[in-house]
């Protein structure tokens, strides 16, 4: 066990859509500062723009490694192979990624190749006094908290969105860009990506990154308009239970839970959601949990900070209207 010292390079894989950096990547850079020297990794056919460099620098990246391939055309095993180039070039012992299904798979391949320890869905990461990397995870639908130490020299950690707030560093310099040639490595895989269709970007914040998520379940009876109305009043995203997505009331990508998206927003509002264990697994680490359900026995009330026993069709519009009124009163329009 040779723990990496705080001098060590911590590589942060920057998730981005086109030229826009996703907020969780900035959270990772913030987290990386307490672990060592953050250096960003940018996968893209084009080098990062000046604006992106400034943003990454402001969040603590000293260097940006440019791997010149288009990640949207690649499968996880190839992504890992390409990331391996940056790891070898920098001698980094720690690699951080945003915990998404795609990144978890790439993390597995990367950790396999590096013989590194692997933690996915981490809710926190820190450096112990003895230099070991320590992570925090939620388990069993959020009913248990685990702290684990990586016992290998190298570590690959996929950190959940909203695990740490993104913070800028004062007076940061613009990072330098180091290009790496990865074309050969990227091309050596035998599964083929035939087609990739990006979902249109919603006007609302993305589900994983949103600070507020309003979720509708079977109790909406198929009408999501009031759920959407409250989400918009709160500036949040719209989520759903599996029942609601299976019924086709909303797209599958909105499903929160063990087989859907895992979220940790500051505020979760569930309307007509019973709180099945499969659903709780994806939302129980939310900051404040609000539940609106007409059945006082609904299990979601066991984990709700604020529960309302009532009909969502009367409660939701009332909250939305009152929130808008209070905001207008406070001069926010």
């Amino acid at each position, binding site marked *: 066990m040779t723990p990496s010292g705080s001098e060590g390079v911590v590589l942060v894989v920057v998730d981005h*859509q086109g030229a826009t950096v996703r907020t969780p990547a900035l959270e990772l850079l913030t987290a990386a500062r307490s672990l060592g020297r953050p250096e960003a990794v940018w996968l893209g056919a084009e080098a990062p723009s000046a604006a992106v460099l400034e943003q990454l620098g402001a969040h603590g990246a000293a260097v940006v490694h440019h791997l010149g391939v288009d990640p*949207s055309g690649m499968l996880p*095993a190839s992504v890992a192979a390409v990331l391996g180039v940056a790891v070898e070039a920098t001698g980094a012992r720690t690699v951080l990624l945003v915990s*998404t*299904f795609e990144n*978890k*798979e790439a993390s*597995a*391949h990367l*950790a*396999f190749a590096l013989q*590194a*320890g*692997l933690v*996915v*869905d981490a809710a926190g990461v820190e450096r112990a006094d003895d230099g070991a990397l*320590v*992570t925090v995870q939620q*388990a*069993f*639908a959020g009913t*248990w908290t*685990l*702290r*684990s130490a*990586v*016992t*290998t020299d190298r570590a690959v950690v996929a950190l959940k969105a909203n695990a740490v707030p993104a913070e800028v560093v004062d007076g940061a310099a613009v990072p330098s860009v180091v290009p790496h040639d990865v074309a050969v490595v990227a091309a050596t895989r035998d*599964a*083929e*990506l*035939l087609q*990739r*269709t990006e979902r249109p970007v919603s006007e609302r914040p993305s589900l994983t990154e949103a600070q507020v998520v309003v979720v509708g379940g079977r109790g909406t009876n198929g009408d999501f308009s009031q759920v959407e109305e409250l989400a918009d009043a*709160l500036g949040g995203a719209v989520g759903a239970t599996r029942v609601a997505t299976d019924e086709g009331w909303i797209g*599958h*990508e909105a499903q929160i839970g063990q*087989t859907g998206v895992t979220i940790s927003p500051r*505020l979760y509002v569930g309307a007509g959601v019973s709180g099945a*264990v499969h659903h709780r*697994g994806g939302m129980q680490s939310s900051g*404040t949990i*609000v539940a609106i359900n007409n059945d006082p026995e609904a299990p979601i*009330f066991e984990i*709700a*900070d*604020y*529960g*309302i*026993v*009532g009909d969502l069709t*009367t*409660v939701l*519009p*009332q*909250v939305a209207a*009152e*929130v808008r009124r*209070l*905001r207008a009163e406070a001069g926010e329009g």
Partner: protein
Amino acid sequence: MKIVVCVKHVPDVQADRRFTDEGLVDRTQGDGTLNELDENAVEAALALVEAHGGEVVALTMGPADAEDAVRRALQMGADQAVHVQDDALAGSDVFATAGVLAAALRRIGEDGPVDLVVTGMAALDGLMSVVPSLIAAELGLPQATLAAELAVEDGAVRVRRDLDDATEVVRAPLPAVVSVTDQSNQPRYPNFKGIMAARKKPVTAWSLADLGVDPATVGAAGARTRVLEATPRPPRENRVLVNDDGDAGTRLAAYLVQNRLV
């Protein structure tokens, strides 16, 4: 086609799940079941064999109770099963698990090549969703994972996978590893005939020695992460439960403002 489906025995999600003092999943409560998401994997394998011919082998690694998981797969319709069991495996991490499953897959392949390895999208105890990728890495096979839809044609598997912000179509030449999501199918329920037939189906037991796996590389000692602390989450404090008497929505808005949530 010879399909091996990997199934895991996990504590029932509806039960009171716990960790041991050593920070391992407590598997001694006797309320384990076949991981629900692996029922989708078994279903996918059975449907492919029904369409293309061949056989389904269910494979599990785990303690004695884990045999229940492959038994369930046999009841659903798998033809035979393999159970890798060894005291040295307790506390194995995902790398050891994938290494042992890969060794068993190679061994199964000695009696006729394996065309497809099918897994669930996640084991509902650890929820890592990484074992399928690690099996692919171990065996040097292409993967087509998180399949919401899958088909085998022209010596390749073709899957549709729905990711957070994109949908992909992936093609992997056989032999390959696929994982299937809970959207991919509706698992069949074993009928009486299936349950009776399963009693006569063989379950082969292998130890690490049978597979030529060094016990030092598996188990808690070989794990790349060590749990320092496992604590049940304390109940949330200051919980409020109100009945709607007509103004609950207004009061909730006030609560949100007061707690700076808007």
